[in-house]
């Protein structure tokens, strides 16, 4: 751990020890949004009234930045409606009534040679592996994540923001970081998978490395958790392991983890880890890839963490498309005075307004708050105390940026590196005047972009 992470950032309470995921029964109706990632919406391939089998494609698109959507139950398509996604926008969604049979479709993909070991993966062409990942419609497990086949490819075209900067414009991916830590505790789906060291993981990681071309594999493990099984695997397959402290927020965010593990700096605001030759994939995504290659079937479940003020917080294996409200009921129900339901963790998550919002490939968990616990911001002026400067992990001066954005001096703020903010929320967390720092900065960024578009 670098010195900067001791001095910068904030300390969050240690999340409760992760339990193994418990399976939840499939719901009576699943809601499958035709866009479960950042990118393009897929076109529906079914019509209301159609009978579908589990694993049957219900949405697909020619667009590269789009992932195929499969039915996660067998049954009848009821309708195609508009449903909110975690960020609140409306997405066309296929509603399927479950017939309870869970009958798999037997497509050629399912019978295609299952890859049972890392050696077999190593003997397969990367493009073939990539095609299977794309057919399975995998998505990097993160809100606003990309379709996995996009995320694993090096940038298709030179990124315009990298011109004249000295950073190679197209750089092959040489490092793969498998992230068993969760950036935003206590929502920790990855930490509950630490015990799943088996063929799935070996095949998944081998495939991810083969597709991306990475020669160096780093397994980022949470410090203080029992990860002996994964460590043994890492020794067997010659992966490097690194210990990352989950409670020192926000150093498990991709950009900062790439910096601390490889020393490379991901260019902000538009950069991604693959611009500096690193691919960061969550442990659950690696397991998904492994499962797709082993079984030849798409993934229909998602490891979903329910934390906060519910009766029985825990980690569940949820059928994709289950409304979040039903998962909450399975966790014992929320508090009597409903406050907030946040998809993602408490620091960076998105508060949803509709409990019918389904579990998708990009959601990792929810954090529930009762009404009395909901935080309120104040409109006190900045008192210039500098606590936000002391915690900002990317060395901004949030106090100045907040003031500039509050008084509509957006371009001045942009000159002071407003756009490099990663919106981790540390500044708002420590602000004694309880100013809505993240709100100001996001608003400022939006205004700057809008101003530049004109």
């Amino acid at each position, binding site marked *: 751990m670098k010195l900067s992470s001791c001095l910068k950032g904030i300390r969050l309470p240690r999340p409760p020890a992760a339990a193994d995921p418990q399976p939840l029964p499939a719901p009576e109706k699943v809601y499958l949004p035709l866009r479960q990632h950042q990118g393009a919406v897929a076109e529906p391939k079914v019509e209301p009234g159609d009978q579908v089998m589990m694993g049957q494609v219900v949405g697909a698109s020619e667009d590269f930045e789009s992932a195929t959507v499969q039915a996660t139950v067998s049954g009848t398509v009821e309708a195609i409606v508009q449903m909110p996604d975690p960020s609140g926008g409306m997405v066309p969604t296929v509603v399927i009534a479950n017939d309870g049979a869970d009958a798999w479709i037997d497509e050629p993909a399912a019978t295609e040679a299952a890859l049972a070991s890392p050696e077999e993966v190593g003997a397969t062409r990367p493009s073939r592996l990539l095609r299977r990942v794309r057919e399975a419609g995998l998505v990097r497990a993160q809100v606003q994540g990309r379709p996995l086949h996009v995320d694993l490819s090096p940038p298709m075209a030179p990124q315009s923001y990298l011109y004249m900067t000295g950073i190679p414009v197209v750089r092959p991916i040489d490092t793969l970081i498998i992230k068993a830590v969760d950036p935003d505790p206590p929502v920790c789906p990855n930490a509950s998978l630490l015990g799943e060291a088996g063929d799935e993981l070996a095949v998944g990681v081998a495939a991810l490395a083969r597709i991306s071309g990475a020669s160096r594999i780093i397994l980022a493990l949470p410090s203080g958790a029992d990860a002996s099984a994964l460590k043994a695997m890492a020794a067997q397959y010659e992966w490097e392991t690194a210990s990352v402290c989950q409670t020192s927020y926000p150093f498990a965010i991709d950009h900062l983890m790439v*910096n601390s593990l490889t020393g490379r700096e991901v260019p902000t605001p538009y950069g991604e880890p693959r611009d500096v030759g690193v691919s960061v994939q969550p442990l659950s995504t690696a397991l998904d890839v492994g499962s797709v290659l082993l079984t030849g079937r798409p993934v229909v479940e998602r490891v979903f963490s329910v934390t906060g003020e519910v009766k029985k917080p825990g980690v569940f294996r949820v059928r994709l498309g289950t409304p979040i409200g039903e998962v909450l009921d399975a966790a014992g129900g929320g508090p009597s005075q409903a406050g907030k339901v946040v998809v993602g963790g408490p620091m960076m998550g998105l508060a949803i307004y509709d409990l019918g919002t389904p579990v998708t490939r990009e959601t990792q968990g929810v954090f529930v708050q009762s009404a009395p616990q909901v935080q309120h911001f104040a409109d006190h002026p900045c008192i210039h105390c500098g606590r936000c400067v002391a915690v900002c992990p990317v060395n901004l001066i949030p106090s100045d940026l907040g003031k500039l954005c509050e008084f509509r001096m957006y371009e001045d703020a942009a000159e002071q590196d407003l756009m490099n903010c990663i919106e981790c929320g540390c500044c708002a967390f420590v602000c004694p005047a309880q100013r809505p720092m993240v709100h100001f900065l996001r608003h400022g960024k939006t205004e700057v972009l809008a101003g530049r578009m004109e």
Partner: protein
Amino acid sequence: MNNNLLTVSTSPHILGRTTLRSMYLEMMIALVPALLVGLYYFGAPGLTTVVLAMAAAAATEYLISLITKKPSTLSNLHILLMGLMMGMILPPGAPWWLPVAGGFLTVALGMSIFGGNGNYPFNPVLVAWAALAISWPEAMGAYLEPMALGSGDDWMEAETFLMQLKGDIGTLEMFELGTLWIGNVAGGVGTTGTWALLAGGIYLVIRRLIPWQIPLGALIGAVGMGLLAVYTDERVAEMGFEEFSAYLNIVWLHLGAGSFMIAAFFLGPEPVSSPVTPWGGLLFGLGVGMMTIIVRFWGSPLDGAFYGVLLMNAATPLLDRIRPRVIGKVVSGA
């Protein structure tokens, strides 16, 4: 769970437990040890001074909020903290109107005319102190001989260490380092208890309520400049000090004397008027420490700590321009 009543807002959805009120309360708590030392040695006159200053500050804020028809900010304790600091730097046993004027000036002249908390360029306590020191130099220079609690109320006027030092360099041999640091000397109500101020200041640094750079810079600046000053002072050389440890002892005396500690840990890092950037804070502290020693050795005022803070307050906007490098910022042509 009712589906219609969910709250939607921007992240983060949890906040730290620090509020303005808790922050100012903790700062007051950190001042309590020094205040207790002051009250132990200066008894009733000291208490009167502090209470009058706090009451005057609170009353002024209340009146101003009535006149300007703004909600009073008394509840977040900022005004009381300012009043407390004002009282603590005044001489005990000052005539009653001195702390009252101090409290009034702190709030009215130092704070409110600039727009209240968050907007003033100079530390309001020191603005008021400067006004008082210029207007009533005699009253501001009338200190009491310390008397432990319970040894009567027969107060005698006394000169502070720095006053005596200005007149006679031989004073250096009359004071013991231990006595000076423990607070058993003439001085402002809350400025003499060096150990107590140090403890309170370290508490604030550990709680991350003040940046560590400012006190550290002040200590480095004072020790470094102090050694330089002692080595170049002919009078000290004439007294026959030759060893480094002797020189260093003189510097420790200076750290414990006057108002250096309260300036380094409480008045200097006062949030609004001090820089926020790490290097800016370090330079700010260095400036405070160096000014303290420079004024004491070569200036006409007795103590330079407050002048140092006021001067560096003026430099704060400049120091805030020393920004650290932004991680991930793409530098053109690098």
